């Protein structure tokens, strides 16, 4: 039990450090997104393919938000 807690604490610490590195590299990743991406990479997802997906989703997210804002403005 104590061993598991220690492992979890070490994993959290590693994510904290990686998040700090991502901030220094100006990756625009919050901690939650980074944690999901780390889990996916640990599950064998190719890092370059994942980075490409993240960039594309950001663009799509911006489009979706612009669309929602336009729809909200039309309703007013």
């Amino acid at each position: 039990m104590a061993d598991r807690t220690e492992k979890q604490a070490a994993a959290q610490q590693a994510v904290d450090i990686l998040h700090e590195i991502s901030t220094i590299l100006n990756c625009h990743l919050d901690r939650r997104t980074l944690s999901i991406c780390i889990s996916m990479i640990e599950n064998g997802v190719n890092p370059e393919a994942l980075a490409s997906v993240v960039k594309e989703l950001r663009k799509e997210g911006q489009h979706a938000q612009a669309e929602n804002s336009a729809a909200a403005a039309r309703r007013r």
Partner: protein
Amino acid sequence: MAYQAQLAAQADELVTAITNIPENHKHRDVYREYVLRSIRHHTFVRTNQFEVADRIKGLEERFRVVGRDALADAYRQRLDALEPHRDHTTPDILHFLLELADQPAQKSKLTD
């Protein structure tokens, strides 16, 4: 099968985290399928850990060349702190971060 289910759940979480679109949004499934298709069928090669190490080192040098010594020191400090946590996926994760890096030598702020 469990692996596929886990990947699908992670793809869903990723869509939520990045796009902020609600679960009932009309394009939600399209985005999730896009993520799954893109990570299953791609033409990228496997991470070369030596190339990643070179890029990491090169970036630190670049910070120093452009006079951002404090940023270079902070970067080195984090890389050293990461050493005890290194495992077989660390080069892949660093590769991922390097791919998403957005002109850090020009734009990164230590206050962040």
